[in-house]
């Protein structure tokens, strides 16, 4: 197929070598005309890494709100469990990026840099189906949470390659757009912030059902400018029916190429809860032990009081926004995994060698998985009309 014809925007029809031509991977010439998803975006964004990353790396968050939970180290087994999942999650994302770069997927977006927050979150979630369990309104950076919940990483590869075997969307949706009714993971939507308008609904059902199930909703910092974020604040704090919603904002100080500095007059996003009497806190999302304790405390609060809590977690965006910005390593933001590994080494819980071996093993495992997925079938065109309507009421059955 002719890949200089602007109509046929199918990356796979064009040799990717060409795209990777001058100046290393993805230092593309702007005149290239063939493109996968958002290659046009990618073309400019991926090259602006320098500009994007020269902004001084201050960490302006102030611990605010409720008293800080106990500061001592977590139990060693838990530290090791968290570390293990963080490594697996990082390796998974690296594999997904690889897949994208090798043409085994059209678009990558994910969560490298958020593992220190997302793994503890996943471990603390009350996992299950129906209102007695936590409802999860995730955004597109939550692979680590999914792994901590017990997801098989190969399924993420399947979604990346949009195979028919992709259990999250059958090859229909982007990578890291999870959906799993069995665990109350509601379909991740690409639209920024809409999940915050839906979250009060699942929380109402939970409050009525009794029990300890809560609703957890996550999103980024830039997205809080959408009205839906305010909707969630208003609806969760209604005096007539306060709701058990744990609102989470992972603040990486960027929305694609736009720095939050120019757009957000709030000192902290957590402050926005205050006017509504919503307890809130800004935390260091790079410290998994701190995250664990803070999430635990916040969840405890929400589970028992049946009222909302807002956590703002300061995180890094270690491969930029998405494949649209090149998906190349960003070197000047803090890496939570490195920091935690240094701690584990110092505490004598793991050696560098052991950690390297772990990482290598996971990498090999996912390399193998990639091969498996490559051989799996693509969905058939004739299936596009499947599942528009359901004949059974699955969610009520649960």
């Amino acid at each position, binding site marked *: 197929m002719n890949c200089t014809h602007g109509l046929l925007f199918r990356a796979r029809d064009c040799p990717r070598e060409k795209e990777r031509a001058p100046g290393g991977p993805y230092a593309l010439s702007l005149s290239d005309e063939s493109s996968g998803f958002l290659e046009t975006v990618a073309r400019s964004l991926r090259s602006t890494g320098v500009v994007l990353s020269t902004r001084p790396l201050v960490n302006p968050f102030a611990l605010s709100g409720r008293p800080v939970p106990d500061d001592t180290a977590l139990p060693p087994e838990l530290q090791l469990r968290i570390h293990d999942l963080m490594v697996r999650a990082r390796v998974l994302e690296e594999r997904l990026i690889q897949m994208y770069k090798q043409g085994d997927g059209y678009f990558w977006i994910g969560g490298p840099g958020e593992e220190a927050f997302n793994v503890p979150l996943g471990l603390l979630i009350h996992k299950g189906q129906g209102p007695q369990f936590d409802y999860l309104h995730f955004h597109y950076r939550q692979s680590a949470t999914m792994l901590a919940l017990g997801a098989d990483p190969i399924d993420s590869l399947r979604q990346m390659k949009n195979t028919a075997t992709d259990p999250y969307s059958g090859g229909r949706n982007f990578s890291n757009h999870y959906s799993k009714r069995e665990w109350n993971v509601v379909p991740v939507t690409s*639209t920024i912030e809409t999940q915050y308008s839906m979250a009060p609904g*699942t929380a109402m059902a939970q409050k009525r059902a009794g029990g300890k199930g809560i609703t957890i909703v996550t999103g980024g910092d830039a997205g809080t400018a959408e009205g839906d974020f305010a909707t969630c604040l208003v609806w969760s704090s209604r005096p007539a029916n306060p709701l058990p919603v744990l609102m989470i904002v992972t603040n990486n100080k960027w929305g694609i190429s736009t720095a939050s500095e120019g757009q957000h007059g709030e000192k902290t996003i957590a402050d926005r809860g205050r006017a509504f009497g919503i307890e809130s806190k800004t935390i260091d999302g790079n410290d998994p032990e701190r995250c664990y304790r803070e999430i635990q405390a916040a969840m405890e609060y929400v589970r028992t009081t049946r009222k909302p809590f807002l956590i703002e977690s300061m995180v890094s965006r270690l491969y930029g926004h998405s494949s649209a910005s090149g998906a190349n390593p960003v070197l000047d933001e803090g890496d939570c995994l490195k920091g935690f590994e240094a701690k584990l080494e110092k505490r004598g819980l793991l050696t560098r060698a052991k950690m390297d071996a772990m990482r290598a093993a996971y990498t090999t495992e996912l390399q193998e998985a990639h091969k498996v997925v490559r051989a799996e079938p693509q969905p058939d065109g004739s299936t596009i009309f499947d599942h528009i309507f359901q004949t059974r009421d699955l*969610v009520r059955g649960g």
Partner: protein
Amino acid sequence: MSNMVQAIRMALHVAEERHGLNDVFGEDVGPPLGGAFTATQGLRTSWNSPLDERGIVGAAIGLGLAGSRNVAEVQFCDYIFNTIDLLKLGGMISWGSNGDWNCPTTIMTPVGSGIRGSIYHSHSFDATATHIQGFKIAIPSRPLDAYGLLLSCIVDPNPCLFLIPKALMRTRSAPGEEIPGVDVDDRALSKMIDAPLGDRTKWTSQWPNTPDLFIPLGEGRTVRPGRDVTVVSYGRMLPLCAKAADDLALESNGAIDAEVIDLRSLCPLDWPRIKESVKRTGRVLFVNEDIEVTNFGEHLLRRTVDELFYELLAPPRVLAGSATPGIGLADNLEAASVPQLAGIAAAIRDLAKHQP
């Protein structure tokens, strides 16, 4: 004879008592008002929401995801236009998850003109709704259908839109078309289920014993059989079409005999009924009051042309609302903006008299 808001109220009551309806909510939906059009008075599960349509539609979807049957009201469909993204998302929950999830929720909203709603309260929603995929869409033109369609929406595992013609809210059932179980006269019924004047804090509704009557979504109704022209309509325009057909038959001494079909549900669509009729008559008029550009009637016309071109005895027609940004308040302005009885009759007459 019950009117349409009473029918809706009774359906909601039956659903909350027998079909697990947990929430009926929206702006002014709960006590003391019971809905801007009084459709939610006296219910056990109704409550007032914040003034925030995105929150209403979002919460409805969230409740549905949690398996909690609910009916959310958007006070006027005119206020739903900032939620089209949420509706699109709601419509792709099952499809986008490849069938893993479903979302039972019903969003009900008054549509159309005819109440002097002025430039921003006279909008229709059928064109916009039918362009969104993944929702079932019902629109009644009489109390019995309102009752039976709403019950079907509520128990459906999919998201549903229930569009209520603003101008038909107080229309009463015609003789023989009453909701089964409503065996008292108007005044008695009103005493039983209309909230009283003044203090309502101690009032409770006395519900008549009405049945589980489910009118299937996707089944139209031939309101008036006829020989010469097929008129396909729904909602507010339907009774006008029926009246126009009756008037014409009378005035022509039976020479013009139009068949009138009430679609009742826009998705799924009872296409077989339309097709069978047009095959017989060879002449068809589609009537609705939404803006005529990119209009659902045009879709129906296109299908007609696709499948029945050589069986047509006259060009198929669409009669719809004017291509204006809204509808002006003054009588003349509204009358000039949406199809009126005389215009509908004229269109049927033209079709009937058309010489191929």
